[in-house]
C-alpha cells in the first residue's frame, strides 16, 4: 500500500529535525546549557595554584605602582638640571669655542674686543683692538 511505502521511506531516511525543536531542547528547564554543571578534573586546582604563584611573582609589587610616575618625573627633572648646568658651565663653553675653531665665531664669543680683517689672500684674520 501507498502509506506503508511512505512509512518505509520515512524510516529509511527520516527528515532533519527542525531548528525550532533543537532550540526548544536547548532552552528546556533543567536541560539548559547555560547553567550546565560539570565536576572539574581533580588535578586542575593544583595546576591553577602553581600558575597563579608564577603569575604573581612576575607582577610588579602593587605598592610600587603609585611611585612610578613620581620616579619618571624625578628622572626627567634630574636630566634637565644636569643638561642645563653642563651647557652653561664655563669650561664646557670654552671647549666648545676651541672645538669650533672658527675665527669669526671665536672672536664673537671671546670677551676681548677684536676685529676681523681680510688679508691679501682673502683669508680672514683676527686683529685685537688695543684698549
Amino acid at each position: 500500500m501507498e502509506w506503508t511505502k511512505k512509512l518505509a521511506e520515512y524510516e529509511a531516511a527520516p527528515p532533519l529535525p527542525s531548528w525550532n525543536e533543537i532550540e526548544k531542547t536547548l532552552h528546556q528547564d533543567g536541560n539548559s546549557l547555560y547553567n550546565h554543571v560539570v565536576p572539574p578534573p581533580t588535578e586542575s586546582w593544583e595546576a591553577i595554584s602553581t600558575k597563579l604563584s608564577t603569575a604573581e611573582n612576575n607582577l610588579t609589587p602593587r605598592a610600587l605602582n603609585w611611585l612610578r610616575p613620581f620616579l619618571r618625573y624625578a628622572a626627567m627633572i634630574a636630566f634637565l638640571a644636569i643638561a642645563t648646568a653642563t651647557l652653561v658651565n664655563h669650561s664646557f663653553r670654552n671647549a666648545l669655542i676651541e672645538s669650533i675653531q672658527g675665527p669669526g665665531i671665536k672672536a664673537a664669543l671671546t670677551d676681548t674686543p677684536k676685529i676681523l680683517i681680510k688679508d691679501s689672500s682673502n683669508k680672514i684674520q683676527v686683529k685685537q683692538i688695543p684698549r
Partner: protein
Amino acid sequence: MSSNHLPNDHDLIEGCILGNPVMQKNLYDKYAPKMYGICLRYAANSEDAKDILQDGFVKVFINLSKFKAMGSFEGWMRRIFVNTAIELYRKKNQLYAISENQEENIPNQDISALDELEAEDIIRLISELPNGYRTVFNLFAVEGYSHKEIATMMKISEGTSKSQYARAKAWLQEKIGNRNQDKV
C-alpha cells in the same frame, strides 16, 4: 566543609584579594563546576577545556581587585572564561567567512526527534562542531550575545558571525538527524 558553611561571595572576594589560599580554594570549589561546563562547551576536547579552566581562574584571581560589585560576580567570571576561550580559539584557528545567503538554504523540516537528547549529548555534539561554528554558536544560542557583540568580541564581521551561526545550525540539524536515523 559543607557548602552551607562556605563564606559568601563578598567574603570570598575579599579573602582572595588579600591572597588567602583557603578563600581561593573555596572560590574555586564554588564556581569551578559551572565554569568547567562553559569551558567544555567552547573547547574542542577536554584538554583545551582544562587549559581554559586553568587560565580563566588565574585571570579571575589576578583581576579580582578590578571587580566592581555593580553586577553579578558569576556574570563577571563567566565573561572572563568566555574571553579566555575566544583567546584560545584565536590562537589555534582562523575563521573562514562564508556566504551569508547560506543561512536561507538550511533545511527546516518538521519532526520531533529530541525527546531523549540530554545536555551531555548536546555538549558532545557542540564539541564536535568545527571551531569557528562552535564559538559563534555558543555565544549566540547559549550566552545570548548579539551578532554585533560577537563580531566585536571575535574581531570578525557581523556577516561572518551570522554565517558561522547558520552553518552551525545546519551542521547540528544534520548530526541530530543522523543520530535519530541510527536509532530507527
